[in-house]
């Protein structure tokens, strides 16, 4: 059996890449992709722990499926919003979308 540390390192790497993407990227679409990476890192953790700790239960696996489902819905929504922003302002750069402030 593959040791659990491998999965944890993998998910840690994925999560960090996701955080880096969210912080460093300016394009809204890329930020959403980074968020997806973070979500999948979490999903990997769920599955790994589910298999290692409670192989007889499906709780972790079901959580992962929920995460995937909700992530899909979220992406659909977010892309819709980004499209509207792009239509209105002609850009998807989050630095330039700062109307909601003091």
């Amino acid at each position, binding site marked *: 059996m593959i040791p659990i540390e491998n999965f944890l390192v993998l998910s840690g790497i994925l999560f960090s890449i996701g955080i880096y993407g969210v*912080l460093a990227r300016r394009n809204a679409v890329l930020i959403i992709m980074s968020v997806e990476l973070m979500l999948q890192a979490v999903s990997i953790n769920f599955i790994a722990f589910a298999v290692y700790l409670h192989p007889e239960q499906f709780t972790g696996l079901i959580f992962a499926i929920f995460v995937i489902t909700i992530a899909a819905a979220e992406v659909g929504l977010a892309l819709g919003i980004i499209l509207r922003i792009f239509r209105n302002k002609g850009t998807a750069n989050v630095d330039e979308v700062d*109307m909601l402030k003091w």
Partner: protein
Amino acid sequence: MEEAWLIPALPAAAFVILLLFGKYLPRHGDWLAIGAIATSFVLFFFVLADLLDDMVGTEFDKALGQSGIEWVSFGDFELRLGFQVDQLAIVMLAVVTFITLMVLVYSTGYMKGDPRYGWYFAAISLFAAAMLTLVLADNFLLLYAAWEGVGFGSYLLIGFWHEKRSATEAAKKAFITTRIGDVGLLIGIILLWREAGTFDMSEIFEFAESGGYSSEYLTMAVLFLFAGAVGKSAQFPLHVWLPDAMEGPTPVSALIHAATMVVAGVYLVARLMPLFAAADPIALNVVTAIGLTTVMMSATMGLVATDIKRVIAYSTINSLGLMMVALGSLSVSAAMLYLFAHSFFKALLFLSAGSVIHATERQEVSELGGLARRMPVTAAVFAVGALSMAGIVPLAGFWAKDEILNVAGDSQNFVVYGFLMLSVFITALYMTRVVILTFLGEPRDREAHQHAHDAEPVMTLPLLLLAGLTVMAGFVVFDGVGEALGFPGGIGEFVFLEGPEAFHFPWDVAVLSTLSAVAGLAGGFYFWSGAAEPARRAGELFRPAYEILKRKFFMDDIYQWAIDRVVLAAGGVIAWFDRNVVNDTGVDGSARLGVFAGFGMKFLETGKLPNYALAIVTGVIVLAIVFMVVRV
């Protein structure tokens, strides 16, 4: 005794109906108020019959016939509200229902044509309901609520003619002064409850008898409770409100400020006698001292008062002081006998004074005089009341006062006894004075004298009934009379604390008190008959003393000074603190701080997504580090 709750409930219902529909009822619903209290009076006899069946030589504090409901219960604390009928309550029930009935009948004549005729009857019904609840309450919480209820009723009725500024001032003065005592009462109740964990009176008495309270604690508690009685019963130093309360309609003075509400304090102390007895003797000495001070101050002030109602008001304070002395001598039966007799002759005095005022529209004795020829019936009943107050045999006041002198002579030192004898003399003196100045001699105001006449039958009938009772009520001291009426014996065998006492009559006390009273009467005739020349000369001779009495021992001035200098000054400081510190700094300051902080912090809202994301990530990392450091 299950029906006892109906006795206060009927006037309460009458109050509600009169308040809501009084305007639409014929005669503004006065018959409803009278009917309600008359029914209560009839019910009283049923309750009395029940009580006499039940009691076989029991003490009054062994709750006879309790009934009630559970009001609230939380945890292991239960609050029962209930009514309890015992000998004390029976005496008070008799007094309150009967006097209220008499006063209401009288008022249909006295208040005729008043623009707020209906409201008057509603307010008296409210007062009667509260007073009867107070009498029957079996626990301190209900008693306190009813206690405030009668205070409120009294406030409404003193200020009944609120177009008059003096009436509103008097109402306020009465309410606030009695409230000062009531604070003490509330503290006392809380102190008793804190140790015993119950408000129920009989349980608290048992707790006290089993030594649940330490002596000092109980003494402190009963002294606080006594403060409530001092306020309500107009004892020194809170007596100042009662003379001013005469601004109310005269029947109200008869009902509330003579026969019922003001004796609530006496009733409270009598009811709590087991606690006073269990406490340090100092508590009873305080009761005696306050009572005696009140007796002497009010009696001397009664000598110089010029308003006929105020003279009677001072005589009321005088009587209340006597009752307190009786209680201070641990004699519940003497106090309750005096209370019983006093209610009749004092109501009689007030109501006949009301007839005088009604007929002449004058209250100052300097404008009255010679009215006996014009109003013979009123003069006769007033004289009966005055003689009873003075303590002339065989009127009710004589037996009651003698009983008090008796117990005071037995259990107090000779100074108290001597002062009481002196007060008997002064009482006779000023009662003679008011009778002479009002009814004898030459009329000083011709016009008023011309129009004066005895009042209509509806007002005279209660006077005659009360006069009859004034003559007869004192005979309840005789065991034979009590037995004939179905009681175990005289009042000493009916209302008692330590054991039934058969009637006994020490001749020395009776002779001495009669001598004092007769000396007072003779002195009164010497000083004030004719042109009252000796009185004027005495006034000149003792001018400083006269001035002090005229200024009511400067009590009002002292209070006024205290209010102006102490209360208002302290109020000014508190107002400054409230305006500057609480309001400007605290309330406005915190608002301004919020505005300022919001202005400064709003620049954190850049609207740029990466900033927010960075803040979130930083926050999570910081939290994670903190969590690890703290946890490990």
